[in-house]
């Protein structure tokens, strides 16, 4: 079991790296816009020194754009901070919808690079499960990425949360390529995470969906 936990941690490190890379790219894009706005202010000051009057409305628009991008970057960093704190406790009770939405926001650029968006449908009432919060995010991302790659035609992947008896289902559609799905979920990382979290992976071919079935109460073996 110790060896298994080591492999889960190793998979987690790769996952952490991937998410950190995409988020830092997002932050750099924001910094680039802020940097250019600062540069534009310098250009305008230089022009003012040469006799061209400063337009207060133009300065206001630049300040607004900087504030907008700072706000956006702050949101991205807040998400990254929440993600980083998921490793604090190896076992905790989490709100499933909140965890899935965090993953969707963190991976927005990875989805948009595929020309896709992911939407989590809000459950009728909050759904909480006791689990390893970080391994849960890792498994959810594996499923989201698989759903996107296996749905070449769909611009949007929908994620639904359903409460079953002692378990919770996270269902993703509209999947088309089930050969790709089977291949992906027979890979080592996916099998390892499913086994570690005692989760099941379900393929609903007629319903064009894949699902993770997670225990409501998990404890390490």
């Amino acid at each position, binding site marked *: 079991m110790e060896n298994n936990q080591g492999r889960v941690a190793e998979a987690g490190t790769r996952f952490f790296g991937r998410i950190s890379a995409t988020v830092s790219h997002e932050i750099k894009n924001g910094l*680039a816009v802020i940097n250019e706005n600062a540069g534009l202010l310098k*250009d305008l000051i230089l022009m003012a020194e040469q006799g061209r009057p400063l337009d207060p409305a133009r300065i206001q628009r630049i300040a607004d754009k900087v504030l907008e991008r700072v706000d956006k970057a702050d949101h991205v960093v807040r998400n990254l901070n929440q993600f980083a704190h998921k490793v604090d406790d190896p076992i905790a009770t989490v709100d499933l919808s909140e965890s899935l939405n965090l993953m969707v926001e963190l991976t927005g650029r990875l989805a948009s690079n595929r020309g896709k968006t992911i939407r989590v449908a809000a459950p009728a009432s909050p759904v909480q499960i006791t689990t390893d919060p970080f391994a849960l995010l890792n498994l959810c991302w594996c499923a989201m990425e698989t759903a996107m790659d296996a749905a070449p035609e769909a611009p949007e992947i929908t994620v639904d949360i359903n409460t079953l008896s002692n378990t919770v289902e996270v269902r993703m559609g509209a999947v088309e390529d089930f050969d790709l799905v089977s291949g992906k979920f027979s890979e080592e990382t996916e099998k390892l995470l499913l086994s570690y979290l005692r989760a099941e992976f379900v393929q609903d071919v007629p319903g064009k969906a894949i699902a993770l079935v997670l225990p409501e109460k998990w404890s390490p073996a």
Partner: protein
Amino acid sequence: MTENVLLIDDEQDFLDIMSERMAARGFEVSTSMSAEDALGMIKKGAYDAIILDLQMPGMDGIEALKAIKEIQPEAQIILLTGHASVEKGVEAIKLGATDFIEKPADLESLTRKIKNAHAEKIMIVEKKEKEAVLDALKRFGM
């Protein structure tokens, strides 16, 4: 001489402000939010330098670089990257990019790179023209 520059990035805010600042420095700037649209623009006209974001939705920067080089082998492409590591930049140079610069970019440094790229393109075009003339002279036995 006015350099004719094509700026390709999926961030509208970045395109707007960069094109304004570059125009103020005397560049003639065209913009595109996707590599696919940019390829259409490159087929219609030549640019002295193409500034290309490495990571974009749809066709990414490396794929776009290969496609541009197929359309215009003499195109001078400067990659703009949010990646902090140099590996992608090195890969891009191997594939024929002229240079790369990390975001947030220093506009003065980018300006120098564009001017260098333009000078390089002039040399390549002049060399090609000279070769064509020599080839024609050879064919006529001169």
